[in-house]
């Protein structure tokens, strides 16, 4: 038995409001189809009503779609939190060592002015990526698991990045030379973060385009 539009909308409402899927359009659409198919089969096989079948199906899903209060990401569904934790690992594994290598690699050249020029060049790349990301978020038509993840901390990183640049310019100005680089670590780190998040947002655009075709 096929569910009616109202019944499908009800499942969508439950996912949005009872299970915190409001901001994850891509995953919610996929789960909505799965749960709807499961409810349809359950009604057919067990000769029960929609009102009886839905709680049974949701119960099967509960562990995955409820918020995991013990997790770092405790206000999102567990299935989302688990993916975000994996992405965190990927980020840390590629960004932190690279930041450390570039920062410590510059120590032997601490008295060289070109390091400061290099830092400001990296800052320019960071600035372009930061503006590009903020522009992408502005144009964002759907909230997806990836876009929400990328958006989550980007404003903080943009703020930190600007603070570090201003601090460095002030230090250079007050010293009267280009040898002070208090922002070096932050500039390298945030630029790398922007670069990785840009990759994530490119993937997100692919998901958005697919959603646009059918919505």
């Amino acid at each position: 038995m096929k569910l009616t539009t109202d019944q499908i909308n009800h499942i969508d409402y439950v996912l949005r409001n009872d299970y915190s899927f409001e901001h994850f359009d891509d995953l919610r659409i996929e789960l909505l189809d799965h749960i709807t198919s499961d409810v349809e089969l359950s009604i057919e096989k067990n000769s029960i009503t929609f009102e009886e079948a839905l709680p049974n199906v949701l119960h099967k899903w509960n562990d995955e779609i409820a918020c995991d209060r013990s997790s770092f990401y405790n206000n999102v569904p567990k299935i989302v939190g688990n993916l975000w934790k994996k992405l965190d690992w990927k980020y840390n594994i590629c960004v932190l060592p690279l930041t450390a290598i570039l920062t410590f690699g510059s120590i032997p050249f601490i008295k060289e002015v070109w390091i400061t020029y290099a830092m400001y060049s990296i800052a320019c790349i960071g600035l372009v990526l930061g503006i590009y990301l903020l522009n992408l978020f502005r144009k964002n038509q759907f909230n997806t698991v990836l876009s929400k993840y990328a958006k989550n901390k980007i404003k903080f990183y943009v703020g930190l990045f600007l603070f570090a640049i201003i601090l460095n310019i002030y230090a250079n100005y007050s010293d009267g030379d280009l040898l002070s680089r208090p922002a070096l670590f932050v500039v390298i780190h945030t630029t790398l973060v922007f670069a990785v998040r840009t990759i994530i947002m490119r993937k997100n655009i692919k998901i958005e385009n697919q959603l646009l075709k059918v919505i």
Partner: protein
Amino acid sequence: MKKQQQLYKGSLNTIIMKLLEQQGKMYGYEITQKVKEITQGEMNITEGALYPALHKMEADGFLDVEMDRVDGRIRKYYKLTESGVKETVSRMEELENFIRNMQTIVNPNLKLDF
């Protein structure tokens, strides 16, 4: 039954890829039902395992997705990419070798032909 599920767990991605190779494109629920049907209910892919596996393979470039509107809702179909097809062949070879080796240990007199 539960112990058997543990044995299947390590081969989940290979099973999904093999199904997609045979069927062309499938959606999540269809995959769970197909596996249940083929194994006559012996193997049950849990929702918590299926979607992370599909999303990981999509991120790795082995799967491509296609969306369609079906019965008043949007359906996401998965299909193998070119590299996904190659990966399926190599994973199936690995799985067949594994089964052959296990068979040799469990029952040395029985010969399996793949």
